């Protein structure tokens, strides 16, 4: 009688977790894209990968492969865009970071990033340390263990077993809290500004949101990654990694 609603709950839980991963049919497109990539048919590979995106599905690996494909086609702008998108899903992936660095070297702009306060860098490193899915599982399992331990401790107080259960539960609670904050920061996008990649071969940067030639300050080139600020009609305020600020037509950017 008391157990029945709990069992229902658990069933819903598993179903909920599983449905997020079950998407039949996309595997075929992914394999097709990979095959075309290996055959050197990069246009075809892009088309195959794009069908998965059209179906409303994404994955870090998918974005990574798309980035590679555009790189091979010599389109540095889209390559960096997809690498950046992949980075949102798998921030610490070694292959991804290597390819992104290589793509950046091929861009025309040599932008020296402003030095960052070491604490912010350390926090960013920590937040990006564990891949998202692993992090979610880790937090979930630790949370369940802590709750289970708490239940045992409530129901069987004072027994020798309860002592160990309590210690385990405390440890699990610590892990859940620590990584839970990490997960929350990443999911809520705290401290992660909206970025964009320059798609145009050369985009004029104006000192104000206007196409007046006299207001032109400098130019950014394809593949430059910028932070997006205010918007004004068709114009976006951008902040370069070296702190330079200007306005660019929105059509020349693609938000990550």
């Amino acid at each position: 009688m008391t157990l029945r609603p709990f069992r229902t709950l658990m069933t819903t839980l598993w179903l909920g977790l599983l449905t997020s991963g079950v998407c039949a049919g996309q595997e075929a497109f992914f394999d097709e894209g990979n095959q075309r990539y290996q055959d050197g048919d990069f246009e075809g590979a892009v088309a195959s990968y794009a069908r998965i995106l059209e179906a409303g599905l994404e994955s870090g690996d998918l974005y990574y492969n798309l980035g590679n494909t555009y790189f091979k086609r010599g389109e540095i702008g889209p390559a960096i865009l997809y690498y950046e998108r992949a980075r949102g899903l798998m921030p610490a992936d070694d292959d991804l970071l290597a390819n992104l660095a290589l793509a950046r070297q091929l861009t025309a702009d040599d932008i020296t990033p402003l030095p960052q306060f070491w604490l912010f860098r350390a926090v960013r490193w920590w937040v990006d340390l564990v891949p998202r899915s692993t992090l979610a599982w880790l937090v979930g399992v630790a949370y369940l263990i802590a709750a289970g331990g708490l239940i045992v401790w409530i129901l069987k107080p004072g027994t020798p077993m309860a002592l160990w259960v309590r210690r385990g539960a405390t440890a699990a609670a610590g892990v859940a809290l620590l990584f839970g904050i990490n997960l929350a920061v990443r999911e809520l996008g705290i401290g992660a500004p909206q970025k964009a990649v320059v798609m145009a071969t050369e985009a004029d940067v104006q000192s104000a949101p206007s196409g007046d030639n006299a207001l032109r300050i400098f130019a950014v080139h394809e593949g430059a990654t910028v932070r997006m600020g205010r918007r004004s009609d068709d114009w976006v305020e951008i902040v370069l990694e070296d702190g330079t600020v200007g306005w660019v037509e929105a059509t020349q950017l693609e938000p990550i």
Partner: protein
Amino acid sequence: MTLGRRLASVLATAMIGLLCFPVFGLAQTARAYLSQNEVGLNQQFVLNVEVAGIQQLDADPTVPDLSAFAAYLGSGTSTSMQMTNGRTSVTLTIQYQFQATGEGQFNIGPVTVPAAGQTLTTDPLTIRVTSARSGRGGGGADGGVDPDDLFIIATPSKEAVYVNESVTVEYRIFTRVNVDGYNLTEQPSTAGFWVEELPDPVGGVEQMVRNGVQYASSVIRRVALFPTSSGRKTLGPLTIEAQMRVQRRSRGFFDDPFFGRSRNRPVVIASDTVEIDVSALPTGEPPSFTGLVGQFDVATSFDRTDLNTNDALTFRLEVTGTGNIRTVVAPELGFPGDFEVYPPDVTEQVEPFSDGVRGRKVFEYVVVPRAPGDVALPPVELAYFNSDTDAYAVATSAPITLRIAGDAIDAPAGVGGRRRTGIAAQQDIRFIRIAMPTFRPIGTSLFRSLGFWVVLLAPLLAVAGAVAMQRHQDRLRGDVAYARGRRASRLAKQRLAKAESLRSPDKHRDFHAEVGRALQGFLGDKLNLAEAGLVRDQMRSHLIARGVSDDVIAPYLACLEDSDRQRFAPTEPDPVAMQEMLTRAGQAMTDLDQGLS
């Protein structure tokens, strides 16, 4: 003797001091004359301006411009005194020395001399400059010098050389007159040559015989020349001004060994030009040839050969040889790409020798290896043209092997920008992911997924349930009334079930007993009372005290009463009535349970 001469000097000075006094008041006159009226080209002549009756001029005399045919060399002043019949006359003479530079007959205009408040003017003069070197310089004491007595000979070490081959030119002075010193007035023009000035020779004066005449001779200048292009090259004359010592001609009273003085007179002499034939280098030069001519050697060394990566070591490249060592450019070094080679520190040292210059040029490089391993450095090659054998040659150094330990180190990024060249060729992106990834809907957030909320909330509910369960068990354990109350329904149901099993006419007494027990026990458990001693009035008062309404109490008590009465009634029971009894009892207890809670 010495004492006597000093006495004579003192006496003379005293006499001049006494005798000068009456000089003032005499008329002043100026006169100009030449040391010779005919002079050879390039010979010197002296324009003398003699002012009588004065010791000092108000200003320098104005000499007419003679630049059309003569070059001004210098001037000097002298005074002389003469005593005639007890009268003393003072004469001031200014001598202007010139060198004749143009042939022909020339007039020398009047010289104006400002003296004693008036301007004196001399008469104009005429001079003839001839192409022939004049004989004895007019025989005058103030004339030029005989070219056979004082001349400079320029001697090249070779008259035919290759381009960039060294040739030494030696300038030697020959003299039969006394020369106190000299200074160079004109450097020879050296267009078309790279000049290496050789240090002044220290040989001193030597006696040499030339054309059967003995001269005192000395080397005054030596240069090493490296012709920069082929053809016939002319080296201009070297001109010096020599200080020739001449015996002063004394007059009158002081014409005496005691007063015999000498003075220096500047004389300008020039060397002849030097012609050198320069031939171009033969064809067939080695690829690395940079134009060096001479004999060269090249040697390389490191300050050590065992080291770790990222250690700085010094690589020394030394080029030695004869020839234009200063023009040696650093040869190609065969360092591998993972060596960082910094620009060299260059030192050179050049010394003359009989046939030109020799020396060494040292290039010291700081080298930092970035990768470990044994590295065999290829020999350094230096191509040159050997002027002795008239053939090209290549000097090579011995190969060196470096043993580098440690880990490979990424070279720091180049200064001032990236090295973009060849990145795409050397590096490639890493391969795509083949393993099937897990796809998820675009834009999903963890907070929108069901699983997240289930995982978040289910344990909270479970913990809440556990807490409730634990509290329940605690009450069961410690509170009899609570326990009996919680048990009441269950026991009552068991008894009713038992009663139902007895629902047959022959067992109707047991049936009703069981129903009565169920009813009574339920109340006892609920109210935590001893059921045996319960009287109906007590039951009523207890229930009223618990706030149970009479509508509930009355059917219950009626039901209880019925069951008692039926138990002892003789009437044969009716199964339908028994079933109704059960229903009534159940309903009564349900109502009571609700009324009590």
